[in-house]
């Protein structure tokens, strides 16, 4: 009796599998999730001098634009000063002293406006991330904010 029950269950189960089998094979054909872009590690187009972003050529005069620098100071107080000191001392991110001597104006302005892409692509920023361990956030700066901040950084580096 027991055997009979087991047998009938097995037969039923096989019948079930057969009945449902037809659907399964058609299932796999409609997979749309394979269309992701393949990213390569090499990045030949990246320009480590200019960085990547909308700024290609920034005209910087030998002397300071004091008005711009003052506007830049205001942006610094709200959006940057929480993490950066004006000395060479690291807080969350590196201190700003000397940054305009180490980096091109275009690089600076691209980095502070196109932050995520630059961190992903720039070898020096990746090295910096290993030191600071906090990804610099995009602080939603306008183009003017970025230019004014550059001028404020120049002032901090002694441009008169």
């Amino acid at each position, binding site marked *: 009796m027991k055997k009979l029950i087991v047998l009938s269950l097995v037969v039923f189960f096989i019948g079930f599998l057969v009945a449902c089998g*037809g659907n*399964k094979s058609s299932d796999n054909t409609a997979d749309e999730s394979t269309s992701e872009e393949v990213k390569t590690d090499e990045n030949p187009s990246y320009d480590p001098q200019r960085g990547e972003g909308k700024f290609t050529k920034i005209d910087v005069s030998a002397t300071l634009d004091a008005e711009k620098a003052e506007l830049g100071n205001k942006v610094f*107080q709200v*959006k940057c*000063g*929480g993490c950066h000191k004006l000395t060479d001392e690291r807080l*969350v991110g590196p201190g700003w002293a000397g940054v305009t001597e180490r980096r091109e104006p275009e690089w600076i302005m691209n980095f502070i406006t196109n932050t995520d892409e630059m961190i992903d692509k720039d070898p020096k920023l990746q090295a910096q991330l290993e030191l600071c361990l906090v990804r610099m956030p*995009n*602080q*939603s700066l306008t183009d003017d904010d970025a230019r004014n901040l550059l001028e404020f950084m120049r002032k901090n580096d002694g441009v008169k």
Partner: protein
Amino acid sequence: MNSDYRLTGFLCPVKCKSSIVQFKKDKMKLIKNSVFGLSALALLLSMNACKPKDAGSVVSGDAASKTYVAPGKYDEYYNFVSGGFSGQLAVYGLPSGRLLRVIPVFSVDPEKGWGYSEETKPMLNTSHGEVPWDDLHHVSMSQTKSVIDGRWVFVNGNNTPRVARIDLKTFRTAEILELPNSGGNHSSPFITENSEYIVAGTRFSIPLDDQNGDVPINTYKQNFKGTISFISVDKDNGNMDVAFQLKTPGVNFDLSRAGKGKSAGWFFFSCYNTEQANTLLEVNASKNDKDFIMAVNWKKAEELIKAGKGKKQAVKYASNRFDEKTHTATSRMKNEVTVLDIKDHPGLVYMIPCPKSPHGVNVDPTGEYIVGSGKLAAILPVFSFDKMQKAIANKTFEGDYQGIPVIKYEAALHGEVQKPGLGPLHTEFDDKGNAYSTMFVSSEVVKWNVKTLKVLDRQPTYYSPGHLMIPGGDSGKPTGKYMVVYNKITKDRFLPTGPELSQSAQLFDISGDKMQLILDFPTIGEPHYAQAIAASAIRENSTKLFKIEENSHPYVSKGEGETKVVRKGKEVHVNLTLIRSHLTPDNIEGIKVGDEVYFHATNLEQDWDVPHGFAIKGALTAELLVMPGETTTLKWIPKKAGMYPMYCTDFCSALHQEMSGYIRVSPAGSNVAISYSTGTNQPKSAVTAKK
């Protein structure tokens, strides 16, 4: 399994007790009438014959591919689902059924600080004081030209009568308006086709707010009145106001829908308890063979109000609005409402008889057909707007109800759907002229054609469905791909979780002739009505952060330079900033036992998805969860001297565990001065060593 399922409709637990009693009673009546009795039997048999062998077999093999949304891909629809007795609004993605967000509305939500932060407390204020909970049933999205426009979602609070508006830019509750002269706001917040008004019909009639309510309960017939509120919606900012109220005979208003197209100037309300019972309603409010659908000519009501026919009535109700620039809610108490007594204005309101305590009333996309769902009836009546207008013109009335003309049933009737199932509750529409109705008692959803009234398909649901939803399904432009049914009973649908279970929702593919069940998903609270909109219509408008430049909170700190701690007597205000990965200030001394300390925390981040949390040991409140650019306030009254850590609760960066600080609390009479800092309060030894 089979018998288990079949029993559910009839032997379901406490929740639907009343329906069972009513159904038994109905059955008794039916047996007396043998012809009808036989047909009912045939109906039961035919339904059993349609039932599947087991729950698994109704799901066919391609269901998974229809609901699978690959990792990183987006859902096609946002589905806004009422959270019922949770008081909140849930947002799901369709077709995946993934829970995207729970928006706190009427209930406090410690996770988000909703109702705990000083800025959000006023949102829950009412004429009764701060109410921390409500029962959220229905969802209406704003419409333009009878199409859902994706600007706002409106929801109702059933218990302490309120309506709320959720802004779809921020997915936050922007406004909560209390309703005077209401005993419970169920028939709400249904909307007109250009969002001129949302309505609120009282479920419980009561003596109105300016009357003495201290009367014997059994004086319902003399003293109890119903009201319908028409709430205006500002075209530009969505702000709501009670434009006017209609005073009606004392009945229970259940649900409602606006007309559309040719019937756009009308609003339809289902009424039950036209018996005016005040006790044992399940028996005493089920005596009449027919109750009513109340048809209101709201354009005429608008004219009467403009002509000064309304009467001012003294009331008290709260209007609470959240300002996105100050990040702060304000609660204002209002003290007057304009009321039109419907019996004084012939031509304003008509009653259409509708069998057996109608629950849902739904208007088809053309605005011509009005479906009543008598929850105890064995048919679904469908009324015709044109026939109703003709009956009004010809005065084809069968009498009056408390002075309101009652149109002859047959004169307004387009026809009846025969044998739709047992316990019809709600109806939605697709883009092909079909209607879909839920059958609570027989646990199924039934598809039928609006013009021919022929039943086209029926599918079981698991179990006892309440509302159902098709994206756009109550608007002038429904879609025809998905339908979700929200069930009242879950039983064996998911892994058991003790006596309390999540309620289930079921997604159907309705693109073919037959409805196909493709997904079950659990919900929060108890889902009632819902709405959905194509994700593409609102996705791009979603706010990512609040601009710190635009923050006009009185205690904002725009940068760490503006942080401070200021004592004003026993009040201490801490202007504090949050940025990865420190608090400024993070060392605070000079706080004393019994001080009222307000921490005004500003998140200085200006990037998407970088919230910071804020919590203090022992504070008798919830955390704050502060979005980028926002300022939010935690109030704390320390009760004992000692050292109190504070920290960020939302893992924000690799140095999140470092994002913390200390508050020193001294005894009440202490002379420790206020001091505060970040990074400079070093040990004396370290300072001397440097020197």
